Protein backbone atom coordinates (compact mmCIF):
# COMPACT_ATOMS: atom_id res chain seq x y z
CA UNK A 1 0.00 0.00 0.00
CA UNK A 2 1.44 3.36 -1.03
CA UNK A 3 0.79 6.75 0.50
CA UNK A 4 -1.06 7.89 -2.61
CA UNK A 5 -4.57 9.20 -2.06
CA UNK A 6 -5.44 8.26 -5.60
CA UNK A 7 -3.74 5.46 -7.44
CA UNK A 8 -4.73 4.35 -10.92
CA UNK A 9 -3.16 1.69 -13.09
CA UNK A 10 -4.28 1.11 -16.65
CA UNK A 11 -7.51 2.97 -15.90
CA UNK A 12 -10.02 2.93 -18.75
CA UNK A 13 -13.48 4.31 -19.44
CA UNK A 14 -15.63 3.21 -22.34
CA UNK A 15 -18.95 4.70 -23.40
CA UNK A 16 -20.35 2.02 -25.68
CA UNK A 17 -17.86 1.60 -28.49
CA UNK A 18 -16.01 4.80 -27.73
CA UNK A 19 -13.10 4.78 -25.30
CA UNK A 20 -12.77 8.13 -23.51
CA UNK A 21 -9.93 7.09 -21.17
CA UNK A 22 -7.51 4.60 -22.68
CA UNK A 23 -5.35 3.25 -19.90
CA UNK A 24 -3.78 5.83 -17.62
CA UNK A 25 -1.59 5.61 -14.51
CA UNK A 26 -1.90 8.27 -11.82
CA UNK A 27 -0.53 8.75 -8.32
CA UNK A 28 -1.78 11.68 -6.29
CA UNK A 29 0.13 12.18 -3.05
CA UNK A 30 -1.26 13.57 0.16
CA UNK A 31 -1.07 17.36 0.42
CA UNK A 32 -0.32 18.16 -3.19
CA UNK A 33 -2.24 20.00 -5.87
CA UNK A 34 -2.46 17.71 -8.87
CA UNK A 35 -3.58 19.04 -12.23
CA UNK A 36 -5.11 17.64 -15.39
CA UNK A 37 -4.53 19.64 -18.55
CA UNK A 38 -5.76 18.74 -21.99
CA UNK A 39 -7.87 19.89 -24.92
CA UNK A 40 -11.66 19.43 -25.05
CA UNK A 41 -12.62 15.79 -25.05
CA UNK A 42 -9.25 14.59 -23.72
CA UNK A 43 -10.96 12.55 -21.00
CA UNK A 44 -10.30 14.79 -17.98
CA UNK A 45 -13.86 14.91 -16.70
CA UNK A 46 -14.37 11.22 -17.36
CA UNK A 47 -11.33 10.53 -15.19
CA UNK A 48 -12.51 12.90 -12.49
CA UNK A 49 -15.89 11.20 -12.39
CA UNK A 50 -14.29 7.81 -11.94
CA UNK A 51 -12.22 9.14 -9.06
CA UNK A 52 -15.38 10.73 -7.60
CA UNK A 53 -16.96 7.24 -7.56
CA UNK A 54 -19.89 8.26 -9.76
CA UNK A 55 -18.73 6.53 -12.91
CA UNK A 56 -17.75 2.86 -12.75
CA UNK A 57 -14.43 2.18 -14.43
CA UNK A 58 -14.45 -0.03 -17.51
CA UNK A 59 -11.06 -1.55 -16.84
CA UNK A 60 -7.87 -1.21 -14.82
CA UNK A 61 -7.23 -0.59 -11.16
CA UNK A 62 -8.32 2.38 -9.11
CA UNK A 63 -7.90 3.13 -5.44
CA UNK A 64 -9.17 6.30 -3.83
CA UNK A 65 -8.25 6.97 -0.19
CA UNK A 66 -7.06 3.37 -0.09
CA UNK A 67 -10.46 1.97 -1.07
CA UNK A 68 -12.05 0.58 -4.20
CA UNK A 69 -14.77 2.87 -5.67
CA UNK A 70 -16.73 -0.14 -6.92
CA UNK A 71 -17.08 -1.47 -3.39
CA UNK A 72 -16.80 1.47 -1.01
CA UNK A 73 -18.29 4.31 -3.07
CA UNK A 74 -20.32 5.92 -0.26
CA UNK A 75 -17.48 5.68 2.27
CA UNK A 76 -15.08 7.31 -0.17
CA UNK A 77 -17.54 9.99 -1.24
CA UNK A 78 -18.09 10.90 2.40
CA UNK A 79 -14.49 12.18 2.46
CA UNK A 80 -14.42 13.92 -0.96
CA UNK A 81 -15.31 17.44 -1.96
CA UNK A 82 -16.47 17.66 -5.57
CA UNK A 83 -16.86 20.68 -7.81
CA UNK A 84 -18.34 19.40 -11.09
CA UNK A 85 -17.64 21.03 -14.43
CA UNK A 86 -21.24 22.24 -14.58
CA UNK A 87 -22.88 23.76 -11.54
CA UNK A 88 -25.68 21.62 -10.18
CA UNK A 89 -26.87 23.69 -7.24
CA UNK A 90 -30.32 23.09 -5.86
CA UNK A 91 -32.24 25.89 -7.59
CA UNK A 92 -35.31 25.38 -5.45
CA UNK A 93 -33.43 26.35 -2.29
CA UNK A 94 -31.81 29.48 -0.94
CA UNK A 95 -28.06 29.96 -0.84
CA UNK A 96 -27.79 28.99 2.81
CA UNK A 97 -30.18 26.06 2.49
CA UNK A 98 -28.04 24.68 -0.30
CA UNK A 99 -25.18 24.30 2.15
CA UNK A 100 -27.48 23.19 4.90
CA UNK A 101 -29.14 20.39 2.97
CA UNK A 102 -25.88 19.25 1.44
CA UNK A 103 -24.31 18.87 4.85
CA UNK A 104 -27.28 16.81 5.93
CA UNK A 105 -26.71 14.45 2.98
CA UNK A 106 -23.32 13.82 4.54
CA UNK A 107 -25.01 12.87 7.78
CA UNK A 108 -23.95 15.98 9.68
CA UNK A 109 -26.16 17.20 12.51
CA UNK A 110 -28.39 20.22 12.13
CA UNK A 111 -26.29 22.20 14.61
CA UNK A 112 -23.03 21.30 12.88
CA UNK A 113 -24.24 22.32 9.42
CA UNK A 114 -25.56 25.61 10.74
CA UNK A 115 -22.12 26.58 12.02
CA UNK A 116 -20.42 25.26 8.90
CA UNK A 117 -22.75 27.08 6.50
CA UNK A 118 -22.08 30.42 8.16
CA UNK A 119 -18.34 29.84 8.07
CA UNK A 120 -18.33 28.79 4.40
CA UNK A 121 -20.54 31.66 3.25
CA UNK A 122 -17.97 33.96 4.76
CA UNK A 123 -15.14 32.02 3.16
CA UNK A 124 -16.54 32.55 -0.36
CA UNK A 125 -17.87 36.03 0.43
CA UNK A 126 -21.55 35.28 -0.05
CA UNK A 127 -22.77 36.12 3.46
CA UNK A 128 -24.89 39.03 2.26
CA UNK A 129 -26.63 36.79 -0.29
CA UNK A 130 -27.34 33.98 2.18
CA UNK A 131 -31.13 34.19 2.00
CA UNK A 132 -31.46 34.80 -1.72
CA UNK A 133 -32.69 32.08 -4.05
CA UNK A 134 -29.81 30.48 -5.91
CA UNK A 135 -31.36 31.45 -9.24
CA UNK A 136 -30.68 35.12 -8.53
CA UNK A 137 -26.91 34.65 -8.21
CA UNK A 138 -24.56 35.56 -11.04
CA UNK A 139 -22.59 32.79 -12.72
CA UNK A 140 -19.47 33.52 -10.72
CA UNK A 141 -21.36 33.60 -7.44
CA UNK A 142 -22.91 30.22 -8.26
CA UNK A 143 -19.46 28.85 -8.90
CA UNK A 144 -18.30 30.13 -5.52
CA UNK A 145 -21.31 28.59 -3.83
CA UNK A 146 -20.57 25.28 -5.54
CA UNK A 147 -17.06 25.46 -4.12
CA UNK A 148 -18.37 26.30 -0.66
CA UNK A 149 -20.75 23.37 -0.92
CA UNK A 150 -17.92 21.01 -1.77
CA UNK A 151 -16.22 21.99 1.49
CA UNK A 152 -19.13 21.33 3.79
CA UNK A 153 -17.85 17.93 4.92
CA UNK A 154 -14.23 19.06 5.50
CA UNK A 155 -13.00 16.88 2.64
CA UNK A 156 -9.58 15.28 2.66
CA UNK A 157 -9.49 15.21 -1.12
CA UNK A 158 -11.03 17.80 -3.41
CA UNK A 159 -11.90 17.22 -7.06
CA UNK A 160 -12.29 20.48 -8.93
CA UNK A 161 -13.32 20.24 -12.58
CA UNK A 162 -12.57 23.60 -14.20
CA UNK A 163 -13.39 25.50 -11.02
CA UNK A 164 -12.69 28.95 -12.42
CA UNK A 165 -14.26 28.70 -15.86
CA UNK A 166 -16.61 31.62 -16.37
CA UNK A 167 -15.21 33.72 -13.56
CA UNK A 168 -13.98 37.26 -13.94
CA UNK A 169 -10.28 37.83 -13.16
CA UNK A 170 -11.01 39.14 -9.71
CA UNK A 171 -13.16 36.17 -8.78
CA UNK A 172 -10.53 33.83 -10.18
CA UNK A 173 -7.87 35.35 -7.99
CA UNK A 174 -10.17 35.12 -4.99
CA UNK A 175 -10.65 31.44 -5.75
CA UNK A 176 -6.96 30.77 -6.23
CA UNK A 177 -6.39 32.36 -2.88
CA UNK A 178 -9.05 30.17 -1.28
CA UNK A 179 -7.71 27.03 -2.89
CA UNK A 180 -4.21 27.90 -1.80
CA UNK A 181 -5.42 28.31 1.77
CA UNK A 182 -7.10 24.92 1.65
CA UNK A 183 -3.86 23.41 0.50
CA UNK A 184 -2.02 25.06 3.36
CA UNK A 185 -4.49 23.45 5.71
CA UNK A 186 -3.46 20.06 4.44
CA UNK A 187 -6.13 19.30 1.84
CA UNK A 188 -5.19 17.45 -1.32
CA UNK A 189 -6.56 18.97 -4.52
CA UNK A 190 -7.07 17.51 -7.96
CA UNK A 191 -7.92 20.16 -10.49
CA UNK A 192 -8.62 20.33 -14.22
CA UNK A 193 -8.23 23.58 -16.07
CA UNK A 194 -7.81 25.18 -19.46
CA UNK A 195 -5.96 28.12 -17.95
CA UNK A 196 -2.24 27.53 -18.10
CA UNK A 197 -1.48 30.35 -15.71
CA UNK A 198 -3.83 28.71 -13.24
CA UNK A 199 -2.09 25.37 -13.59
CA UNK A 200 1.31 27.04 -13.25
CA UNK A 201 0.25 28.94 -10.14
CA UNK A 202 -1.60 26.20 -8.35
CA UNK A 203 -0.28 22.81 -9.35
CA UNK A 204 2.62 21.01 -7.75
CA UNK A 205 2.40 18.31 -10.35
CA UNK A 206 0.32 17.84 -13.42
CA UNK A 207 -0.41 15.55 -16.30
CA UNK A 208 -1.29 16.53 -19.83
CA UNK A 209 -3.99 14.33 -21.36
CA UNK A 210 -4.80 14.01 -25.01
CA UNK A 211 -7.13 11.54 -26.67
CA UNK A 212 -7.67 9.58 -23.47
CA UNK A 213 -3.96 9.11 -22.76
CA UNK A 214 -1.43 10.86 -20.56
CA UNK A 215 1.16 12.43 -22.84
CA UNK A 216 3.35 14.12 -20.21
CA UNK A 217 3.74 14.33 -16.48
CA UNK A 218 5.75 16.45 -14.03
CA UNK A 219 5.89 19.74 -12.16
CA UNK A 220 5.15 22.85 -14.23
CA UNK A 221 8.85 23.75 -14.21
CA UNK A 222 9.95 20.23 -15.18
CA UNK A 223 7.52 20.20 -18.06
CA UNK A 224 8.70 23.55 -19.32
CA UNK A 225 12.32 22.46 -19.16
CA UNK A 226 11.60 19.14 -20.82
CA UNK A 227 9.23 20.22 -23.57
CA UNK A 228 10.15 23.79 -24.29
CA UNK A 229 13.14 26.10 -24.54
CA UNK A 230 14.08 28.72 -22.01
CA UNK A 231 12.80 31.60 -24.11
CA UNK A 232 10.29 32.24 -26.85
CA UNK A 233 10.35 34.89 -29.52
CA UNK A 234 6.92 36.00 -30.70
CA UNK A 235 6.64 37.74 -34.07
CA UNK A 236 3.50 39.38 -35.38
CA UNK A 237 3.01 40.21 -39.05
CA UNK A 238 0.50 42.18 -41.05
CA UNK A 239 -2.40 39.90 -42.11
CA UNK A 240 -1.40 37.74 -45.08
CA UNK A 241 2.32 38.50 -44.87
CA UNK A 242 3.43 35.77 -42.47
CA UNK A 243 3.02 32.72 -44.73
CA UNK A 244 6.53 32.54 -46.14
CA UNK A 245 8.50 33.34 -43.03
CA UNK A 246 8.56 29.99 -41.20
CA UNK A 247 10.76 28.51 -43.96
CA UNK A 248 13.17 31.42 -43.83
CA UNK A 249 13.50 31.26 -40.04
CA UNK A 250 13.31 27.53 -39.39
CA UNK A 251 17.04 26.96 -38.80
CA UNK A 252 17.33 29.87 -36.36
CA UNK A 253 15.21 28.26 -33.62
CA UNK A 254 14.86 24.84 -31.99
CA UNK A 255 11.22 24.80 -32.98
CA UNK A 256 8.79 27.03 -34.82
CA UNK A 257 5.04 27.21 -34.17
CA UNK A 258 2.68 29.05 -36.46
CA UNK A 259 -0.46 30.40 -34.82
CA UNK A 260 -3.21 32.22 -36.68
CA UNK A 261 -1.97 35.62 -35.57
CA UNK A 262 1.72 35.12 -34.83
CA UNK A 263 4.85 33.04 -35.18
CA UNK A 264 6.56 31.48 -32.14
CA UNK A 265 10.28 30.73 -32.26
CA UNK A 266 11.62 28.57 -29.46
CA UNK A 267 15.24 29.13 -28.48
CA UNK A 268 17.47 29.49 -25.44
CA UNK A 269 18.25 33.09 -26.36
CA UNK A 270 15.31 34.96 -27.87
CA UNK A 271 17.15 38.26 -28.45
CA UNK A 272 19.83 36.52 -30.51
CA UNK A 273 17.19 34.92 -32.74
CA UNK A 274 15.48 38.27 -33.16
CA UNK A 275 18.74 39.90 -34.25
CA UNK A 276 19.39 37.09 -36.76
CA UNK A 277 15.84 37.38 -38.09
CA UNK A 278 16.29 41.09 -38.65
CA UNK A 279 19.51 40.38 -40.54
CA UNK A 280 17.51 38.10 -42.89
CA UNK A 281 15.16 40.95 -43.68
CA UNK A 282 12.15 39.85 -41.64
CA UNK A 283 9.93 42.80 -40.80
CA UNK A 284 7.34 41.94 -38.21
CA UNK A 285 4.86 44.55 -36.94
CA UNK A 286 5.74 43.70 -33.36
CA UNK A 287 8.09 41.42 -31.46
CA UNK A 288 8.25 39.99 -27.94
CA UNK A 289 10.85 37.91 -26.17
CA UNK A 290 9.50 36.04 -23.14
CA UNK A 291 10.12 33.00 -20.97
CA UNK A 292 8.47 29.71 -21.86
CA UNK A 293 5.25 28.89 -20.05
CA UNK A 294 3.01 25.87 -19.74
CA UNK A 295 1.08 27.28 -22.66
CA UNK A 296 4.06 26.45 -24.85
CA UNK A 297 4.30 22.95 -23.42
CA UNK A 298 0.61 22.43 -24.06
CA UNK A 299 0.91 23.68 -27.60
CA UNK A 300 3.73 21.29 -28.31
CA UNK A 301 2.20 18.23 -26.63
CA UNK A 302 -1.32 18.47 -27.94
CA UNK A 303 -0.11 19.39 -31.40
CA UNK A 304 -2.28 22.37 -32.09
CA UNK A 305 -1.26 24.11 -35.35
CA UNK A 306 2.25 22.65 -35.27
CA UNK A 307 4.77 23.51 -38.00
CA UNK A 308 7.49 20.88 -38.27
Amino acid sequence: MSDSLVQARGLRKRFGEFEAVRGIDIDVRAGEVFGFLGPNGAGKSSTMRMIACVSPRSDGELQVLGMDPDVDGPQIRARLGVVPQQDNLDVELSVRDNLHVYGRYFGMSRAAVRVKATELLDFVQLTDRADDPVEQLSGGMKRRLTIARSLVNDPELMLLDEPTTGLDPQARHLLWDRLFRLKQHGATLIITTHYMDEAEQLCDRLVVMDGGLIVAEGSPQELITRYSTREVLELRFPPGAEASWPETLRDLADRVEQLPDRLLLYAADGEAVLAAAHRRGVQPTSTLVRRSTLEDVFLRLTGRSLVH
Partner: protein
Amino acid sequence: MSALRELSREFDARRAGLLVRVLPPGLYAGRARMLVMRSALASRSVWLAIVSGFFEPLFYLIAMGQGLGSLVGTVSGPSGQQLSYAAFIAPGLLATSAMNGAIYDSTFSFFIKLKYAKLYDAMLATPLGPVDIALGEIGWALLRGGMYSAGFLGVMLTIGLISSPWALLALPAALFVASAFASIGIAATSFMRSWQDFDLVQLAVVPMFLFSATFFPLSVYPSAVQWLVQAFPLYHAVSLIRSLTTGVAGWSALGHVTYFVVMATVGFMVASRRLTTLLLR
Protein backbone atom coordinates in the same frame (compact mmCIF):
# COMPACT_ATOMS: atom_id res chain seq x y z
CA MET B 1 -40.10 14.99 17.87
CA SER B 2 -36.70 13.61 18.77
CA ALA B 3 -38.32 10.25 19.48
CA LEU B 4 -39.69 10.36 15.96
CA ARG B 5 -36.28 11.15 14.59
CA GLU B 6 -34.84 8.25 16.56
CA LEU B 7 -37.49 6.00 15.12
CA SER B 8 -36.88 7.07 11.55
CA ARG B 9 -33.15 6.59 12.00
CA GLU B 10 -33.78 3.13 13.35
CA PHE B 11 -36.09 2.46 10.41
CA ASP B 12 -33.49 3.60 7.91
CA ALA B 13 -30.85 1.47 9.57
CA ARG B 14 -33.02 -1.67 9.52
CA ARG B 15 -33.99 -1.11 5.95
CA ALA B 16 -30.32 -0.68 5.11
CA GLY B 17 -29.67 -4.09 6.62
CA LEU B 18 -32.36 -5.62 4.45
CA LEU B 19 -31.50 -3.75 1.29
CA VAL B 20 -27.81 -4.50 1.46
CA ARG B 21 -28.75 -8.12 0.96
CA VAL B 22 -30.88 -7.55 -2.13
CA LEU B 23 -28.92 -4.80 -3.87
CA PRO B 24 -25.29 -4.47 -4.93
CA PRO B 25 -23.13 -2.58 -2.43
CA GLY B 26 -22.46 1.11 -2.68
CA LEU B 27 -25.91 2.18 -3.83
CA TYR B 28 -27.49 2.94 -0.50
CA ALA B 29 -26.34 5.10 2.40
CA GLY B 30 -29.50 4.75 4.50
CA ARG B 31 -30.30 8.46 4.36
CA ALA B 32 -33.41 8.55 2.19
CA ARG B 33 -35.18 10.73 4.74
CA MET B 34 -32.79 13.60 3.92
CA LEU B 35 -34.41 13.80 0.50
CA VAL B 36 -37.81 14.06 2.09
CA MET B 37 -36.48 16.83 4.30
CA ARG B 38 -35.07 18.58 1.23
CA SER B 39 -38.38 18.35 -0.62
CA ALA B 40 -40.24 19.74 2.37
CA LEU B 41 -37.85 22.68 2.44
CA ALA B 42 -38.22 23.27 -1.30
CA SER B 43 -41.99 22.94 -1.25
CA ARG B 44 -42.45 26.01 0.89
CA SER B 45 -42.58 27.78 -2.42
CA VAL B 46 -45.08 25.42 -4.03
CA TRP B 47 -47.84 25.55 -1.48
CA LEU B 48 -50.10 26.57 -4.29
CA ALA B 49 -49.74 23.20 -5.99
CA ILE B 50 -50.60 21.45 -2.77
CA VAL B 51 -53.62 23.60 -2.15
CA SER B 52 -54.90 23.14 -5.69
CA GLY B 53 -54.35 19.40 -5.41
CA PHE B 54 -56.61 19.43 -2.41
CA PHE B 55 -59.31 21.62 -3.91
CA GLU B 56 -59.62 19.73 -7.15
CA PRO B 57 -61.43 16.71 -5.67
CA LEU B 58 -63.44 19.10 -3.53
CA PHE B 59 -64.76 20.82 -6.66
CA TYR B 60 -65.63 17.47 -8.18
CA LEU B 61 -67.46 16.57 -5.00
CA ILE B 62 -69.51 19.73 -5.09
CA ALA B 63 -70.23 19.63 -8.82
CA MET B 64 -70.98 15.93 -9.11
CA GLY B 65 -72.09 15.08 -5.58
CA GLN B 66 -74.47 17.96 -5.09
CA GLY B 67 -75.23 18.88 -8.68
CA LEU B 68 -75.45 15.51 -10.37
CA GLY B 69 -76.42 13.87 -7.10
CA SER B 70 -79.73 15.69 -7.02
CA LEU B 71 -80.66 13.94 -10.27
CA VAL B 72 -79.24 10.54 -9.36
CA GLY B 73 -80.72 10.10 -5.91
CA THR B 74 -79.18 7.13 -4.09
CA VAL B 75 -76.75 4.49 -5.28
CA SER B 76 -76.10 0.96 -4.04
CA GLY B 77 -72.94 0.78 -1.94
CA PRO B 78 -70.47 -2.14 -1.71
CA SER B 79 -72.86 -4.36 0.30
CA GLY B 80 -76.03 -3.20 -1.37
CA GLN B 81 -76.83 -0.47 1.17
CA GLN B 82 -78.23 2.78 -0.23
CA LEU B 83 -75.80 5.73 -0.23
CA SER B 84 -76.24 9.33 -1.24
CA TYR B 85 -74.44 9.94 -4.54
CA ALA B 86 -71.97 12.24 -2.76
CA ALA B 87 -71.13 9.56 -0.21
CA PHE B 88 -70.66 7.10 -3.09
CA ILE B 89 -68.20 9.18 -5.11
CA ALA B 90 -66.33 10.79 -2.21
CA PRO B 91 -64.14 7.71 -1.51
CA GLY B 92 -63.46 7.51 -5.24
CA LEU B 93 -62.27 11.10 -5.18
CA LEU B 94 -60.19 10.39 -2.09
CA ALA B 95 -58.45 7.51 -3.84
CA THR B 96 -57.92 9.72 -6.88
CA SER B 97 -56.39 12.50 -4.83
CA ALA B 98 -53.95 10.01 -3.28
CA MET B 99 -53.04 8.93 -6.80
CA ASN B 100 -52.75 12.47 -8.18
CA GLY B 101 -50.63 13.70 -5.29
CA ALA B 102 -48.24 10.81 -5.76
CA ILE B 103 -48.16 11.08 -9.55
CA TYR B 104 -47.44 14.81 -9.62
CA ASP B 105 -44.19 14.56 -7.70
CA SER B 106 -43.07 11.26 -9.11
CA THR B 107 -43.47 12.26 -12.75
CA PHE B 108 -43.29 15.97 -13.61
CA SER B 109 -41.17 17.19 -10.72
CA PHE B 110 -39.01 14.11 -10.76
CA PHE B 111 -38.32 14.51 -14.48
CA ILE B 112 -37.24 18.13 -14.03
CA LYS B 113 -34.93 17.24 -11.19
CA LEU B 114 -33.46 14.33 -13.10
CA LYS B 115 -32.96 15.88 -16.54
CA TYR B 116 -32.70 19.62 -16.04
CA ALA B 117 -31.76 20.52 -12.49
CA LYS B 118 -29.19 17.70 -12.31
CA LEU B 119 -30.16 17.51 -8.68
CA TYR B 120 -29.34 13.85 -8.34
CA ASP B 121 -25.89 14.26 -9.86
CA ALA B 122 -25.20 16.67 -7.03
CA MET B 123 -26.52 14.19 -4.49
CA LEU B 124 -24.31 11.45 -5.84
CA ALA B 125 -21.26 13.48 -4.89
CA THR B 126 -22.28 12.77 -1.29
CA PRO B 127 -22.62 9.33 0.32
CA LEU B 128 -26.19 9.13 -1.03
CA GLY B 129 -26.75 6.49 -3.70
CA PRO B 130 -29.45 5.80 -6.30
CA VAL B 131 -31.43 3.72 -3.83
CA ASP B 132 -31.58 6.60 -1.34
CA ILE B 133 -32.84 8.78 -4.17
CA ALA B 134 -35.52 6.30 -5.25
CA LEU B 135 -36.70 5.78 -1.68
CA GLY B 136 -36.55 9.44 -0.77
CA GLU B 137 -38.52 10.59 -3.80
CA ILE B 138 -41.09 7.84 -3.39
CA GLY B 139 -41.34 8.85 0.26
CA TRP B 140 -42.01 12.47 -0.58
CA ALA B 141 -44.51 11.72 -3.34
CA LEU B 142 -46.27 9.41 -0.94
CA LEU B 143 -46.37 12.13 1.69
CA ARG B 144 -47.91 14.54 -0.75
CA GLY B 145 -50.52 11.95 -1.73
CA GLY B 146 -51.12 11.44 1.96
CA MET B 147 -51.52 15.17 2.58
CA TYR B 148 -54.04 15.54 -0.23
CA SER B 149 -55.95 12.58 1.15
CA ALA B 150 -55.90 13.73 4.77
CA GLY B 151 -57.25 17.12 3.74
CA PHE B 152 -60.02 15.59 1.69
CA LEU B 153 -60.87 13.08 4.41
CA GLY B 154 -61.32 16.07 6.73
CA VAL B 155 -63.80 17.55 4.26
CA MET B 156 -65.72 14.28 4.05
CA LEU B 157 -65.93 14.11 7.81
CA THR B 158 -67.10 17.70 8.08
CA ILE B 159 -69.94 17.37 5.62
CA GLY B 160 -71.05 14.00 6.96
CA LEU B 161 -70.02 11.64 4.18
CA ILE B 162 -68.43 9.14 6.52
CA SER B 163 -70.62 6.48 8.02
CA SER B 164 -68.19 4.22 9.86
CA PRO B 165 -65.22 4.29 12.26
CA TRP B 166 -63.46 2.07 9.68
CA ALA B 167 -62.92 5.34 7.83
CA LEU B 168 -60.01 6.01 10.17
CA LEU B 169 -58.17 3.35 8.18
CA ALA B 170 -58.83 5.24 4.94
CA LEU B 171 -55.76 7.38 5.60
CA PRO B 172 -53.28 4.50 5.91
CA ALA B 173 -55.02 2.92 2.93
CA ALA B 174 -54.48 6.12 0.96
CA LEU B 175 -50.79 5.95 1.91
CA PHE B 176 -50.56 2.43 0.45
CA VAL B 177 -52.20 3.71 -2.71
CA ALA B 178 -49.93 6.73 -2.90
CA SER B 179 -46.76 4.71 -2.35
CA ALA B 180 -47.70 2.32 -5.14
CA PHE B 181 -48.42 5.13 -7.60
CA ALA B 182 -45.31 7.03 -6.51
CA SER B 183 -43.05 4.02 -7.12
CA ILE B 184 -44.56 3.25 -10.50
CA GLY B 185 -44.45 6.95 -11.38
CA ILE B 186 -40.73 7.18 -10.64
CA ALA B 187 -40.03 3.93 -12.45
CA ALA B 188 -42.00 5.02 -15.54
CA THR B 189 -40.52 8.51 -15.59
CA SER B 190 -37.01 7.10 -15.55
CA PHE B 191 -37.73 5.74 -19.04
CA MET B 192 -39.05 9.03 -20.42
CA ARG B 193 -37.00 10.95 -22.90
CA SER B 194 -38.93 14.13 -23.51
CA TRP B 195 -41.98 16.06 -22.42
CA GLN B 196 -44.04 14.42 -25.13
CA ASP B 197 -43.84 11.15 -23.23
CA PHE B 198 -45.85 12.76 -20.46
CA ASP B 199 -48.95 12.61 -22.63
CA LEU B 200 -48.78 8.91 -21.81
CA VAL B 201 -49.21 9.74 -18.12
CA GLN B 202 -52.37 11.68 -18.94
CA LEU B 203 -53.50 8.85 -21.16
CA ALA B 204 -53.18 6.44 -18.24
CA VAL B 205 -54.54 8.66 -15.50
CA VAL B 206 -57.62 10.26 -17.03
CA PRO B 207 -59.44 7.10 -18.18
CA MET B 208 -58.54 5.42 -14.91
CA PHE B 209 -60.08 8.33 -13.06
CA LEU B 210 -63.27 8.18 -15.10
CA PHE B 211 -63.82 4.44 -15.36
CA SER B 212 -62.51 2.86 -12.15
CA ALA B 213 -65.93 2.69 -10.52
CA THR B 214 -65.27 6.20 -9.26
CA PHE B 215 -68.57 7.68 -10.42
CA PHE B 216 -70.71 4.58 -10.87
CA PRO B 217 -70.62 1.01 -9.60
CA LEU B 218 -68.67 -1.71 -11.37
CA SER B 219 -71.93 -3.55 -12.05
CA VAL B 220 -72.85 -1.15 -14.89
CA TYR B 221 -70.17 -2.75 -17.09
CA PRO B 222 -70.57 -6.00 -19.03
CA SER B 223 -68.54 -8.71 -17.30
CA ALA B 224 -65.64 -8.69 -19.79
CA VAL B 225 -65.13 -4.98 -19.16
CA GLN B 226 -65.44 -5.56 -15.43
CA TRP B 227 -62.36 -7.78 -15.60
CA LEU B 228 -60.48 -5.11 -17.44
CA VAL B 229 -61.42 -2.40 -14.96
CA GLN B 230 -60.41 -4.66 -12.09
CA ALA B 231 -56.93 -5.02 -13.54
CA PHE B 232 -56.20 -1.32 -13.03
CA PRO B 233 -54.81 0.00 -9.75
CA LEU B 234 -57.21 2.87 -9.24
CA TYR B 235 -60.12 0.43 -9.17
CA HIS B 236 -58.49 -1.32 -6.22
CA ALA B 237 -57.86 2.00 -4.53
CA VAL B 238 -61.47 3.10 -4.96
CA SER B 239 -62.89 -0.22 -3.74
CA LEU B 240 -60.58 -0.36 -0.76
CA ILE B 241 -61.34 3.16 0.38
CA ARG B 242 -65.04 2.94 -0.37
CA SER B 243 -65.32 -0.21 1.72
CA LEU B 244 -63.65 1.64 4.59
CA THR B 245 -65.64 4.88 4.49
CA THR B 246 -68.91 2.99 4.18
CA GLY B 247 -67.94 0.49 6.88
CA VAL B 248 -68.11 -2.81 5.02
CA ALA B 249 -64.41 -3.67 5.03
CA GLY B 250 -63.79 -7.39 4.68
CA TRP B 251 -61.04 -9.75 3.62
CA SER B 252 -61.15 -8.32 0.14
CA ALA B 253 -59.39 -5.27 1.62
CA LEU B 254 -56.31 -7.44 2.15
CA GLY B 255 -56.39 -8.39 -1.49
CA HIS B 256 -56.34 -4.75 -2.50
CA VAL B 257 -53.53 -3.98 -0.08
CA THR B 258 -51.51 -6.88 -1.50
CA TYR B 259 -52.01 -5.43 -4.98
CA PHE B 260 -50.45 -2.16 -3.81
CA VAL B 261 -47.60 -3.79 -1.94
CA VAL B 262 -46.63 -5.72 -5.06
CA MET B 263 -47.00 -2.63 -7.24
CA ALA B 264 -44.87 -0.53 -4.87
CA THR B 265 -42.18 -3.18 -4.61
CA VAL B 266 -41.90 -3.70 -8.35
CA GLY B 267 -41.87 0.06 -8.92
CA PHE B 268 -39.18 0.58 -6.32
CA MET B 269 -36.93 -2.15 -7.71
CA VAL B 270 -37.25 -0.89 -11.27
CA ALA B 271 -36.74 2.72 -10.17
CA SER B 272 -33.57 1.85 -8.23
CA ARG B 273 -32.11 -0.04 -11.14
CA ARG B 274 -32.94 2.62 -13.67
CA LEU B 275 -31.52 5.38 -11.49
CA THR B 276 -28.35 3.39 -11.07
CA THR B 277 -27.84 3.08 -14.81
CA LEU B 278 -28.87 6.66 -15.51
CA LEU B 279 -26.79 8.33 -12.81
CA LEU B 280 -23.75 6.10 -12.45
CA ARG B 281 -22.72 6.20 -16.08
